[in-house]
Every structure is written in structure tokens, then in C-alpha cells.
């Protein structure tokens, strides 16, 4: 049953038997299934476009050709870069401010009382609802878009960080206190690492929110960007180009999310159960 039946506890073999080995068997690869469902989706799409009486429903081939043209003349890269730059600027600013703000809210009653009502209220306002006001005040340039994306990212991430700090196991805080840790040490060595998984969840939500806000703001008014590209294509009924834009937005968002997930796995591998 348990190896502790023997009485020589310093025997490494006995203790080795006690160790819990996680993930003893690698799960079967999902890749074939993923490929199969991709092909199935493309097939259904092709079938739908071929059988549709509406000539404006683009086939996969039309979209691929349109995509290639947009790559060749540099339009896609220029617009994707513009969009990505805005998302990164707004997202990085938002998260960079949200993490300290969330820590302050979780740690100090004063900060919680002063900040939380605003955060809770603004959370119920979709960032898109601010776009008209922001455009009037800041114009249609970069500032307006970065600001709206910043706000969307900030709101998503600040609450997750705050929750993370509030959820730190009080036993761990006590364990640090009885080892002689002061407030600052507890904050740096217990609260920060313990809330890291929550912060990552917040960052991933923030990223999704940032993309949604970006595209909406570019659709309304922008000189460049994937949203702008789709807006122009709409005027010429170039549905194939619109689909290229949709796929591009999805791909970029997906890749950034995977990047965050990868970072999270590396930084919070210590978790017993993944958040």
C-alpha cells in the first residue's frame, strides 16, 4: 500500500516510490482530427458557395486568390501591421497599468474603495460605446484607437488581477508571516506569484477584448488597418477580400492567444490544477 510502512525514511528508493508522477502517459495526438475538421470545413464552405444562387458568396478558391493578390501588392501586410501595432500599443499599456492597479485594489482598502466603483461601472459599458465620443474628441488617428483598446484591455485585466490578489490562500500568507516575512516580502514573494495565473487569464480576456474593439473602431473610421481594408472592400462588394480580412484577424488573434498560453504554461507550471 504505502511505502511508509518501512521505517527507514531516509532510503531514497522508498521516497522515490512515494513521489507522484504526473502525466505518465502522453495523450494520443489530436493533429489528424484537427486536419480532418479543417478539410471538412473547407469542403462545406466550397459546397455552400458552389450551390448558392448568390454570386457574392465567395468560394475558398476566390478567397485564396484575393488573399494572394493582397499579399503581393503589400496591402495585407501594411494593414495587418497597422492593426497589430494598435492592438499591441493599447494592450501593453492597458495591461501594464491594470496589473499594478489590480494589486493596489486587492492590497489596500483605500485603493479598493476609490477605484472599484469606477471599474465596476465602466465594465458594464462596452468599449465600443465610447468610440463615437473618442472619435469626436481625439479624431480618427492613432490616439483614438489606442485609447479605446487601452481601456478595453485595462478593464478586462484589472479585475482579474484584483481577484487574483483577493484569492491568495491566507494559509500561505500566514506561513510567510511566521517565517518572519514583512508586508513587502509577502507581497513580492507570495502575493505576486500566487496571483500570476489569474493575471494570465485576465491578459487573455484583455487580448480578445482588444481585438474586438480594434476592428470595430477601424470599421467606423481609420486611414489604415484590417478593419479599414474590409470597409473599403464592402464599398466595392469585394466579399472575397472581406473574408481575407476576417481570416487574418482570426489568425493574428489566435497566434497571440497561443503565445500568451505558452508563456502561462512556462511561468505557472507549478500549479497543481490549471486555472
Amino acid at each position, binding site marked *: 500500500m504505502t511505502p511508509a510502512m518501512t521505517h527507514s525514511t531516509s532510503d531514497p528508493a522508498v521516497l522515490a516510490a512515494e513521489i507522484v508522477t504526473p502525466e505518465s502517459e502522453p495523450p494520443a495526438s489530436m493533429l489528424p482530427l484537427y486536419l480532418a475538421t479543417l478539410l471538412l470545413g473547407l469542403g462545406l464552405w466550397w459546397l455552400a458557395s458552389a450551390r448558392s444562387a448568390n454570386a457574392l458568396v465567395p468560394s475558398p478558391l476566390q478567397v485564396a486568390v484575393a488573399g494572394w493578390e493582397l499579399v503581393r501588392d503589400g496591402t495585407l501586410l501594411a494593414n495587418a501591421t497597422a492593426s497589430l501595432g494598435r492592438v499591441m500599443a493599447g494592450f501593453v499599456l492597458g495591461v501594464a497599468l491594470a496589473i499594478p492597479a489590480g494589486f493596489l485594489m486587492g492590497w489596500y482598502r483605500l485603493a479598493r474603495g476609490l477605484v472599484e466603483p469606477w471599474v465596476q461601472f465602466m465594465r458594464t459599458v462596452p468599449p465600443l460605446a465610447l468610440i463615437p465620443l473618442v472619435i469626436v474628441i481625439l479624431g480618427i488617428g492613432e490616439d483614438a484607437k489606442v485609447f479605446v483598446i487601452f481601456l478595453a484591455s485595462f478593464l478586462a485585466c484589472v479585475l482579474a488581477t484584483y481577484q487574483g490578489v483577493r484569492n491568495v490562500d491566507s*494559509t500561505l500568507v500566514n506561513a510567510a508571516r511566521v517565517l518572519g516575512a514583512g508586508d513587502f516580502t509577502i507581497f513580492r514573494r507570495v502575493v505576486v506569484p*500566487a496571483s500570476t495565473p489569474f493575471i494570465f487569464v485576465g491578459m487573455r480576456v484583455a487580448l480578445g477584448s482588444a481585438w474586438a474593439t480594434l476592428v470595430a473602431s477601424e470599421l467606423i473610421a481609420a486611414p489604415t488597418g484590417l478593419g479599414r481594408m474590409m470597409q473599403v472592400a464592402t464599398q466595392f462588394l469585394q466579399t472575397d477580400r472581406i473574408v481575407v480580412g476576417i481570416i487574418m484577424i482570426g489568425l493574428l488573434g489566435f497566434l497571440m492567444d497561443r503565445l500568451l498560453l505558452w508563456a502561462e504554461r512556462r511561468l505557472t507550471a*507549478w*500549479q497543481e490544477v490549471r486555472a
Partner: protein
Amino acid sequence: MNTPPVNEAAISIRNASKVYSSARGRTVSLDRVSLDIARGEFITLVGPSGCGKSTLLNLIGGLLMPSSGEVLVDGRAVTGPGPDRGVIFQQYALFPWLSARQNVEFGLRIQGLGAAERAERAQHYLRLVGLQDFGDALPKELSGGMKQRCAIARAYAVNPSLLLMDEPFGALDALTRVQMQDDLLATWQQERKTVVFITHDVDEAVYLASRVVVMSPRPGRISEIIDVPLPYPRDDELRLSPAFAEIRARVWRGVHHKEGAAHATTVPSPAIDSPTTSSQGDN
């Protein structure tokens, strides 16, 4: 006249009470408890849930402050937690993002020790609890017993003068628990620290202690203090001896039959092992 206990006792609890006020009224968790614990003693606290034994431990540890009365450690009033009093929690409370070694080094880092000395002390205490080959393992890779060994090494590493243990073996299976008890006693005999140890298990209370403090609930009070005049080192032989059985029976009666009829209907105490089941666990 007796010698003044202030100079003698490692821990001196005088008329300590702890009262919690909530919307539903006042709860007296601890009611005017007095207890002197001598240096190097091994005290176990037993009693049903709600008897205030954890409260008492937290008062000594400085994680709680008494509502009235005072708690002195080495003659000085406790004003907060400190590295002179090591605490072992039932839930292990290892920092899950740190390796076993880094956990043991946590308190040493706070004391400002250099990397080389930290590593040396950590290795010494990991060896003491038999984890010398698992320094780099994360807590999630350790079994329950190993986690608690690591927590014990972490508490020992900062060299506290007393150890406060809150049902440290409560989450372990019966066999691992017996092993941990023997290891704890072996370590205690080497280091001779004062130990205050909470348990639900009457067998465990008698096996470890030089004195068993029996507590009763509502309000939390000390109902009886039972000496255990059995020599250390203790072993299985002693566990099965008539002398042991006799003391166990006394503690058993102290825990179960004090005001038993009054609260047995409202608070069943399933956590307390019956004598028959505990003695089966010995073999």
C-alpha cells in the same frame, strides 16, 4: 512557595480569552485559559471541533491576538508572528511555485543569509527529514507525507525555539501518520525544541506527548491535563503496552465523556478515532 513560572516557562498563557463578534452574536472561542509549558516539553492539545485548540495555537504563534489575558513566550508578551515560533499547518502551506529547497530557504532568505549558507542549511534540514534527494522537486510532485516533511524542514531551518503544529498529520493515511510520528519524535529528541501539537487522534496525542492537554468546547476551555510518564524514545512496543493503554483510556474519557451528553446530540465528533480503529492502525 513555587518558583515564579515566568522565568521557567517557555510559554505562559494567563487568563487568555478569545471572543468573536458577528451579526449572529458573540462566540467565545477561548474562555480564560491558563497554561504553562516548560522548555523542551512536548505538549499535545486534544479535543473536539470548536474547543479552541487552534485558537490557542494561533495566540501563541501571534497570528491572533487575545481579547483579554496575555500570552508570554520566553517571558515576553506575544505581539505578532515571528521566526522564533515555527508553525506547521495541516494543509502543508508550501509555496507551490518554489521547489522543496527554495521553500526551506524561504525563511533563511528573509534573515538575509548568503546563497552558500542558505543552500547548506537547506540541505542539512532536507536531510534531517529524509528529502535530501528531492530538493529540486516542486510541491505538486511530492506526496502528502513528503510535503509535510518539507514543511517541517522549512520550520526547523530558521531555528525557532518552539514549534507549533496544527494537526500536521491529519490529512495523511494511518500508516504514513505512524511513520511521521516516529520521525517527528526522533527529530525532537535531537533538537529538543518545545512542541505544541494539535490532534484529533487520542492515540497520537498520547504517543507523542509528555503532557496531554484535553480541551472542551463552548466555551473553549482546558478540561484536564494528563501527564504521560512514559520514557522516550518511544516505539511500537510501547504503543501496545498496558501502560500506554491506561493513559489512552484516561485521555479518551476526558475527550468524550466530559459534558458528553450535553453536546453529543448537536456536535457528533466523527473526526475522533475510536480506540479500536486507532489500535488497528498500529500494525
